[in-house]
């Protein structure tokens, strides 16, 4: 009787694993496709990009999230970010990006907080003595 019960319990657990787990395959030509990952996976991967940025240099990254912008007085420039959230929606991380071409803010950029999707190469730059990282973006879309 106990053996039958344990078998039933195992089947229940496997069934639970199969339930409610959708998703899509990573896009071709992309090294890190954050859009193909679940919420917690995205957060963990972006956390790794922040803590071990050198490992991601030169990699093509696809990401989506909310668009955010900030103005820095010392340089007199706008800095653009895509914000990704974790599953609990309490932890948010921003990836800086630079859109290729001569684009003027705000006219040629999405509205703030708009959902955006972009593909870019992870790159490095120096700002006032600090090493910072950004996505050099060619493709940026605002999904309808």
């Amino acid at each position, binding site marked *: 009787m*106990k053996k039958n019960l344990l078998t039933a319990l195992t089947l229940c*657990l496997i069934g639970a694993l*199969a339930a409610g787990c959708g998703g899509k395959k990573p896009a071709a030509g992309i090294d890190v496709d954050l859009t193909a990952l679940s919420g*917690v*996976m995205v957060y963990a991967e972006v956390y790794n990009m922040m803590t071990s940025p050198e490992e991601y240099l030169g990699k093509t990254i696809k990401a989506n999230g909310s668009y955010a912008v900030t103005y820095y007085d010392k340089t007199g420039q706008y800095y653009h970010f895509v914000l990704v959230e974790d*599953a*609990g929606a309490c*932890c948010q991380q921003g990836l800086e990006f630079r859109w290729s071409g001569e684009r003027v803010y705000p006219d040629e950029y999405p509205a703030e907080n708009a959902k955006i999707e972009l593909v870019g190469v992870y790159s490095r730059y120096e700002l006032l003595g600090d090493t910072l990282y950004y996505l050099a973006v060619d493709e940026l879309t605002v999904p309808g």
Partner: protein
Amino acid sequence: MTEALGRLAYYFQTFEFVRYAMVAGVLIALCSSLLGVTLVLKRFSFIGDGLSHVAFGATAVAAAMNLTDNILLVLPVTILCAVLLLRTGQNTKIKGDASLAMISVGALAIGYLIMNLFAKSANLSADVCATLFGSTSILTLSPTAVWLCAGLSALVTAVFLLFYHKIFSVTFDEDFAAATGVRAKAYNLLLAVVIAVIIVLAMNLVGALLVSALVVFPALSAMRVFKSFLSVTVCSVVMSVVCAALGILISILAGTPVGATIVAVNISGFLIFSAAGRILQRS
């Protein structure tokens, strides 16, 4: 099902942090369930909650002090509080559960206060959320943290196996154990240290507020079906490891918070075992 398994295979092959999370998660679940049976039987179920709040307070102090490795502060402080709670609780003016409640809420409040006053991170709510609910902590472990987790888990398991018979006797009748020559106070002290280590480890998996679930649910579930100390302990370990692994897998596939998902799986396990226990009783 095939698609879910394919995605899991992709995650495990591609992302190192998923492999780290699974290894650490399974080890933590194993340790927490080993002592869970003892804690439940000694009516110390809630001590995990109190100690995890102490660990949260210590984490806040470590963050304020800018310690790179906060476990150097968190572990000794939690061990000290565990010893104080388990050993002196009955000889002080403030008795058992009252002192536990006092330390529990006090540490939580002071910890949050310190985090606010001396915040080193711009994203305070994220830090608090991750520490309290373990939303993603297990997926952001460094290799050093995984090795530390493996070492401490091996230590906890070794202590449990080496002192299994003594822990057994102290669990069921402390006075009788003392009368038969077992150094009950020394073993209680040992239990306090081991419990503190488990709590600090388990905070990474499910967060400070949910630690008790890892200690209590596997033990209570096993008690629904099995009756002897050994069988309950073995079943509790298997149940805890399976629930943690399943919780992590569901979480990374469905994108749900890791800690809460593991606890939800444990609750489901408890309900299934309760039903199984009733069926067994009837037959």
